[in-house]
């Protein structure tokens, strides 16, 4: 019974590491988007006339969710730490997966389909789009790789 509860606890922590990372990753990507691309570089526009209604709603929901996720993800991180359940590698895997997924959604669905705003208002935006989305895919790939590695190690084969 002891080893069984240990097993489920480890499983629980492994899931939590993933979710804490994913939530914080989504929040981090959104935060960087807001501070660097909106505020500092001023490439992104607050509002673009071509924005669709659904784009506005999607942006609002994602913005609210990511704002909450940034803070909530960090509290989950603190929770794992106080339970001695933190696996930093797995957490980072989650962060990369979350940040990459958000960036890919932002780059393809929100920028292109919903025409929320463009990355930069220049004649040829394609190179920007390519760098944006490829880096998103790379982050997702790196995140998944880390998660795969840590799920094997985290599995209690000898428990």
């Amino acid at each position: 019974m002891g080893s069984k509860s240990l097993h489920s606890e480890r499983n629980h922590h492994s899931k939590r590491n993933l979710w804490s990372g994913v939530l914080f990753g989504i929040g981090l990507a959104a935060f960087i988007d807001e501070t660097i691309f909106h505020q500092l570089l001023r490439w992104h526009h607050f509002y673009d006339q071509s924005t669709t209604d659904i784009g506005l709603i999607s942006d609002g929901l994602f913005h609210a969710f990511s704002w909450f996720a940034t803070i909530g993800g960090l509290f989950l991180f603190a929770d794992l730490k106080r339970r001695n359940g933190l696996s930093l590698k797995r957490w980072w895997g989650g962060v990369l997966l979350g940040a990459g997924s958000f960036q890919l959604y932002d780059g393809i669905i929100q920028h292109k389909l919903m025409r929320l705003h463009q990355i930069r208002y220049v004649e040829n935006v394609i190179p920007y789009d390519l760098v944006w989305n490829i880096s998103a895919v790379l982050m997702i790939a790196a995140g998944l790789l880390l998660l795969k590695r840590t799920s094997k190690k985290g599995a209690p084969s000898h428990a």
Partner: protein
Amino acid sequence: MHEQHANGGGLLFDVILSFPFLVAILLYIGAGIVSNRSRHLQKWPVWRYVLWFIGVLCAGIAVIGPLADQARIDFRAHMMGHLLLGMLAPLLLVLAAPMTLLLRTLPVSAAKKISSLLRSSYVRVISHPITASILNIGGLWVLYTTDLYHMMHDNLWIHILVHLHVFLAGYLFTMAMIYIDPVAHRYSYLYRAIVFIFALAGHGILSKYLYASPPEGVSQSQAEAGSMLMYYGGDAIDAILIFILCWQWYKATQPNKRLAASP
């Protein structure tokens, strides 16, 4: 009347208007002093007085004096006032736990009446997270997307009612999200978090919507500055709310928590 209305109503009007704010501060201090006399109660903490005072001040600044006067003609000042009245003041006042103070000040029989009032179905319905969110964010949608914004500037009573609503709905929303005072029916952290995200989204969407389609008569430059202030100012204050909600959640899920550890 029109002359007075244009500059906010004049000095006499401001003095009358500041009366309820002064009363709120004095009553709070009085309740603190009276309840401190009771031997079995701990001293009411100083920081709660400070929060209450600053909270009342924020609400006061929004409706009396130069910012309030400017708000009648300037959308940016109007937004600043709303951030203070509908978000920051409610947050600070909720954190000052006025209901807890009231209940410990009143004699037991009166306190029991108040707490049964708090458990009434009316209070239960309006302080439900979803109802409170709709009253708060929905009220803002009505204000800015209908003629109400205009009517408010022409009619003093509508002006007062709208501001009262903005404040009360903001207070209701804050107290429905973070439980500081006693609450009749507690909703789970996850439930409140999800409702909060939708409310915050409703606020953000309205801000961006106003950027492009402000109320009639608001110039484009004022609309842009005002809506960005609403968006980012709202984010900043909501970040504090999210932090407190998550902090309470974190404390409640403490491993091996002693039963009497937290309220």
